């Protein structure tokens, strides 16, 4: 049987785990190119004007990858009310119109339609591996995702405390490779240990006054650094610790297992008084997490959203009120292709400065 060539949208470090899984399933993986200016330009050119940034980036990624010869694209679906659930269908239509004959495999959330999900998985499994084999492959790569998340969180903690600017980012890039190259669960374990150990060796100042910033928003711009100009790195270098509200390990669990994780339940509960309705995207999570960050004594919040993203617009409207009520600074970035890195950095600097001043004031009072 011919080996099929497959690709998928780029999304943070996770691409490495996706790759592993698909290779286990017998595919030749055509790695999506890390989104660049060119990717975005391509997306902007062929996507509808009012589509949101993630839509454009993903389309651009496909357009960059498909000329290399791709038989299949695997991506996620969704059932609304956010637009993301229809991305794939429209991408497919646009690509077909442009003459690309590629087959889309769209994974819908298993909670909604278990049978459909199973069917899609079977289609993906074109080499007919046993369920046990697939289970093992998923488990292995899931372990990898967890390791990637753990290491990333460590870097987020260390970055604002490093003695030499840039040392964490450099080391982080290096040790990430350990995990990326590991295959078996045992290897991944070891790689993770080693990576953490190496990171711990970086000289840091643990006594330094560091402000803590929570980060909420729409999933793609949160998880894919190229879509947000590596905002987490910038914030770290400004001397603030970022806590991102979303990691794939959390999200996937909440969307696959019937018993949702505790964390999400409390996020929902926290959002309820302000926004009782699930409005799609991650609008409700943005509100809930904001409240939780306030309770945990964070110094401020950053919201990232694609321009025209409705759930986040609804959230921002409510966040304004929450910010006033709790005297809690919140900065929102609506991102589109016109957003520039420089402008963003200026706003971030001013924001982090403000948080530091506030914190010092509070400390000197007490």
């Amino acid at each position, binding site marked *: 049987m011919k080996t099929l060539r497959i690709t998928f949208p780029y999304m943070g470090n996770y691409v490495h785990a996706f790759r592993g899984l698909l290779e286990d399933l017998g595919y030749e993986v055509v790695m999506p190119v890390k989104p660049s200016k060119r990717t975005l330009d391509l997306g902007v050119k062929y996507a*509808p004007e*009012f589509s949101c940034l993630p*839509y454009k980036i993903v389309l651009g990624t496909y357009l960059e990858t498909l000329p290399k010869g791709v038989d299949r694209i695997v991506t996620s679906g969704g059932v609304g009310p956010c637009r993301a659930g229809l991305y794939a269908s429209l991408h497919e239509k*646009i690509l077909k119109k442009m003459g690309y004959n590629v087959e889309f495999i769209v994974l819908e959330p298993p909670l909604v339609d278990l049978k459909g999900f199973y069917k899609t998985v079977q289609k993906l499994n074109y080499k007919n591996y046993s369920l046990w084999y697939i289970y093992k492959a998923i488990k292995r790569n899931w372990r990898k995702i967890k390791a990637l998340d753990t290491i990333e969180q460590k870097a987020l903690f260390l970055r604002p405390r490093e003695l030499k600017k840039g040392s964490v980012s450099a080391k982080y890039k290096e040790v990430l490779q350990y995990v990326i190259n590991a295959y078996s669960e045992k290897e991944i374990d070891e790689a993770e240990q080693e990576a953490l150990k190496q990171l711990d060796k970086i000289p840091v100042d643990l006594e330094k006054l560091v402000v803590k910033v929570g980060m909420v928003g729409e999933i793609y711009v949160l998880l894919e650094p190229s879509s947000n100009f590596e905002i987490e790195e910038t914030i770290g270098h400004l001397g603030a610790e970022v806590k991102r509200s979303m990691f794939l390990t959390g999200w996937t669990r909440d969307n696959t297992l019937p018993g949702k994780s505790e964390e999400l339940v409390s996020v929902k509960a926290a959002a309820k008084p302000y926004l009782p*309705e699930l409005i799609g*995207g991650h609008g409700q999570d943005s509100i809930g997490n904001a409240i939780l960050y306030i309770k945990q004594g964070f110094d401020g919040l950053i919201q990232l959203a694609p321009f025209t993203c409705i759930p986040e617009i609804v959230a921002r*409207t409510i966040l304004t009120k929450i910010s006033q009520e709790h005297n809690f600074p919140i900065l929102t970035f609506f991102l589109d292709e016109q957003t520039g890195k420089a402008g963003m950095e200026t706003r971030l600097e001013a924001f982090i400065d403000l948080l530091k001043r506030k914190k010092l004031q509070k400390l000197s009072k007490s």
Partner: protein
Amino acid sequence: MNAPVIGIARTLNYYAYYPFWQGFFDSLNLKTVVSSPTTKEILDQGVKDALAEACLPIKLFFGHIATLKTKVDYLFIPRIVNLNRKTVYCPKFLGLPDMIKYSYENLPPVIDIRVDNRNLKDSLLISSLKLASFFGFSKLQGFKAYREGIRRQNLYENLLQKGYLPVNEVNVNSPKLFSVKSSFKIALLGYPYLVYDNYVNLKILEFLHKNNVQVLTAEQVPWPIRNKYAPFTNKKRLFWTFSDRVLSSFQYFLKNVPDLKGIIHLTAFGCGPDFIVDRIMEIDAGEQQIPYLTLTIDEHTGEAGLVTRVEAFLDMIKRKSR
């Protein structure tokens, strides 16, 4: 004590479901006030009050609420999630009452009952009964009011199917404007709060009318028929009610109106779902070689510019068919 006055905004759901609520409140003898038809001032106010990134319809809604809020005892902003058991409303509808509540100080109480026909707890009937009892009426009175609402709503939808074009005003008892019948048929597709609002649509409905063009709108295709035309690929339908309505009626017109001369898509700046709807229609219309025009409205669009474009579009069609 005077009977309370309930404020309703003349936008968004107004052009779709007002007859139901009017019937309901009338039957209970509750007084309602509808904000005046959209004006420049109303839109400007909305632009000021809403988030800059919000889409035009949200801004419009803010503007209408701003004119109402000092004049009424209650603001009626139901959270309509689902009515047909199949599709939900765009996320902005779902968060509407919250956005309003957290944006204005000193608001009269907001009635934000939830309507979701997919579950018993929040179905239109149950929510109506709750609403009635909130105002101190019995279940029976509530039920009667619900029935009256349904009656008027059906009347309205029948009128729409026959070609009634409710310009600025939804009036079931003495409906005014009917579409002309003509062999020059244009489908004017878009959300009811754009198509039927004479300020927002920059009088395009009137313009087409004057030029003896028969206007086909999404509301003219009954739901059971539309339902059959819903999925836009073999797999999925649009899951937002109004978008689904536009796209499925589009598919219906494309296949069943042989003398369809062209399609105009009226869309609002910053509308999330619409970029999907628009591109699909553009591709499909192109394949059938039906002329297609997208008109995007924002707060700066001038009537003159828009009319010129529509004129040019009509001319192009006439030249083509000669």
